[in-house]
């Protein structure tokens, strides 16, 4: 393949920026990272060939600033821009600004993003193409109590309020009773306005119990469309995906066929191009309901890459360069893959985000294990951005193999300095419901209390701590890379003072 660009700006941060940079390298393309002041020494900056500052820590003034990012691409001499996910990835004005600046936007063309920016409009168009959609009014909910009550009358309770411009659980609220409508809408509008610059909401009935199943698609500029399997992302906490897998467990051949065909129909109806994901809810009877199209790479794309043996970022770049997709059977599935999102948050304290220095870090490795990480030892988790630290992905011959590998990998994962959800992830993996592939979207919210309850400290932990005290480590390891200087030296001396007189005399040389 010959690319019409030699240098690509990666308009993102964290693990996805690192992941895109690595594919660029394998393709012989140069990379330019962007960073806010909070990320000047972040791993994605160190990984890229070059880096450009885009502004202060606040996302709105840095990673979400169209002009700052386009200016960075020009300053860095890039000819193309890969947006990653989140931030500006689905913003039509950004894709348009790139095109106007002569930059290839690695994603759907600006015209497609413009025509699909209104989630309600998309829903109406795919419904006309015969794709089954979630019941609800096909118009935004006006401000005020009366309009909310009218929408609720159409959907019934429980009802979902969703951001017209949204995704990722932001600006999304479940409402169970009339009395909660106003406060829920107020909060959702505020969150949606802050996250997407669009405070409009729409209402849908809550399909439940349901699985969240999404279909990965690639569409080239010559009308070629390929389905690359589906993913089950039913394990969600407050609409944030926690664990994802492919193939979706317990799906009948008929439901799978319906989903794949509906995804192709949706892509056709929207004139969609490049990599995208068509999301559905599947109810107990196996009926599918279109949710939305995600017009970008998904966080959970690695499970698809593991099972289907392709590099989706490479294909995003190839499609953007005008290349046609290969034969329909090019990416046959093999085995099963499961991904867990390791986040800086505290499950024992309501999942509040945790930020701070990463004092020590151990990422798992081994057969069938892939880690997409955005942190490094001695680095910092800033409070301004998404809490995703790394994704741990396990690939195995069977679903049980993949789950066993993932659990073993998570057991070896250690992040010291910020709180993480790793122990919570392991407890989720161990539940009979997940093991049997029976999890629906409400599972985590119903079981969170038991899955988050603190467990007694094992004796091993006390022995490990005692062992560390008995064998004071080297400075770099004891006190952490983020520490240093007099404070650390003093604590070392304090520790030594605790040792009994006579112990030193009995000791051998260290």
């Amino acid at each position, binding site marked *: 393949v010959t690319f019409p660009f030699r240098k690509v700006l990666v308009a993102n941060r964290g693990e996805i920026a690192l992941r895109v940079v690595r594919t660029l390298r394998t393709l012989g393309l140069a990379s330019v990272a962007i960073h806010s002041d909070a990320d000047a020494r972040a791993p994605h900056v160190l990984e890229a060939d070059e880096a450009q500052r885009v502004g202060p820590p606040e*996302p709105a003034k840095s990673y979400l600033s169209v002009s700052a990012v386009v200016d960075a691409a020009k300053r860095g001499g890039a000819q193309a821009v890969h947006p990653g996910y989140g931030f500006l990835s689905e913003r039509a004005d950004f894709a348009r600004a790139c095109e106007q600046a002569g930059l290839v936007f690695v994603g759907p063309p600006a015209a497609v993003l413009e025509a699909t920016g209104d989630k309600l409009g998309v829903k109406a168009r795919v419904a006309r193409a015969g794709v089954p959609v979630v019941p609800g009014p096909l118009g935004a909910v006006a401000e005020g109590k009366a309009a909310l009550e009218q929408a609720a009358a159409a959907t019934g309770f429980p009802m979902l309020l969703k951001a017209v411009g949204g995704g990722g659980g*932001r600006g999304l609220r479940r409402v169970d009773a009339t009395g909660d409508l106003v406060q829920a809408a107020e909060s959702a509008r*505020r*969150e949606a306005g802050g996250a997407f610059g669009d405070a409009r909401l729409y209402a849908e009935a809550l399909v439940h119990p349901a699985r969240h199943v999404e279909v990965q698609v690639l569409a080239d500029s010559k009308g070629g469309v390929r389905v690359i399997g589906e993913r089950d992302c039913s394990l969600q906490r407050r609409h944030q995906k926690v664990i994802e897998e492919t193939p979706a467990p317990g799906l009948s051949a008929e439901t799978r066929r319906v989903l794949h065909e509906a995804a192709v129909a949706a892509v056709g109806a929207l004139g969609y191009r490049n990599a995208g994901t068509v999301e559905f809810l599947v109810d107990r009877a196996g009926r599918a309901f279109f949710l939305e199209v995600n017009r970008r790479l998904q966080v959970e794309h690695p499970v698809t890459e593991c099972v289907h043996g392709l590099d989706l970022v490479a294909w995003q770049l190839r499609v953007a360069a005008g290349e046609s997709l290969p034969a329909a059977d090019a990416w046959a599935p093999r085995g099963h893959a499961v991904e867990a999102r390791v986040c800086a948050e505290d499950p024992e*304290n*309501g999942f*509040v*985000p945790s*930020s701070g220095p990463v*004092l*020590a870090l151990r990422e798992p490795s081994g057969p069938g294990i892939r880690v997409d990480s955005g942190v490094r030892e001695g680095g910092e988790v800033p*409070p*301004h*951005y*998404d809490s995703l630290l790394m994704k741990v992905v396990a690939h195995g011959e069977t679903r049980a193999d993949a789950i066993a590998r993932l659990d073993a990998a*998570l*057991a070896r994962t*250690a*992040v*010291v*300095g910020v*709180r993480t959800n790793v*122990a919570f*992830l392991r407890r989720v993996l161990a539940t009979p419901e997940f093991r049997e592939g029976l999890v629906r979207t409400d599972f985590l919210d119903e079981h969170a209390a038991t899955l988050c309850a*603190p467990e*007694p*400290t*094992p*004796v*091993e*932990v*006390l*022995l*490990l*701590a*005692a*062992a*560390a*005290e*008995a*064998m004071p*480590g080297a400075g770099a*390891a*004891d*006190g*952490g890379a983020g*520490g240093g200087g007099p*404070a*650390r030296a003093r*604590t070392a001396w304090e520790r030594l003072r*605790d*040792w*009994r007189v006579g*112990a*030193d005399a*009995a*000791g*051998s*040389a*260290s």
Partner: protein
Amino acid sequence: VKAGNVERTWRVGREVHDVDLRFEPSRAGEGGTLAGTVNGASVTAEAARAGAEVSIAWAGSRATALVVRRGETLLVAWGGRTYELVPVERGTHAAGVHEAEGEPFATSPMTGVVVKVHVDAGAAVARGAALFVVEAMKMEYVVRAERDVVVEDVKRGPGERVEVGEVIVTFREGDEPGDDDEGGGGGGGGA
């Protein structure tokens, strides 16, 4: 490594643990043996260390952790979880640890920005009602009253940046209905 005694009382969350162990280095010079008691029960374990990685062999199986010191606190990352061991005085009881929660204020659970305050000074707030909302990492977090309280003062308002643990709302002492003698009232708490 040198021989020595490790005599500690550690608080881990709401638990308190007593450790009394003697460490004897192995003749090879790498690692050694820990022997003594943990919470009064006899234990013997082999131990070794390489940088931040510490491992023990105990009760027929091996455990390897990353151990880092942060001030006086030991952070032990094992099995996907990081335990925070805070040294306390010998004789500290687990019940005593709970008294730390009896502070008459609600703090921000994270570093972020206050987006909304639901209460004013003087307001009587029922247990479970929202006190204020903090946003960080693009997510909103609602802090609720853990019991019935009367608001004394609101320290921070919408748009203000706050640090984790910073006091946002204070409660009037002694005003809460059903106040008992067990260490005063509780603070605000999680969602």
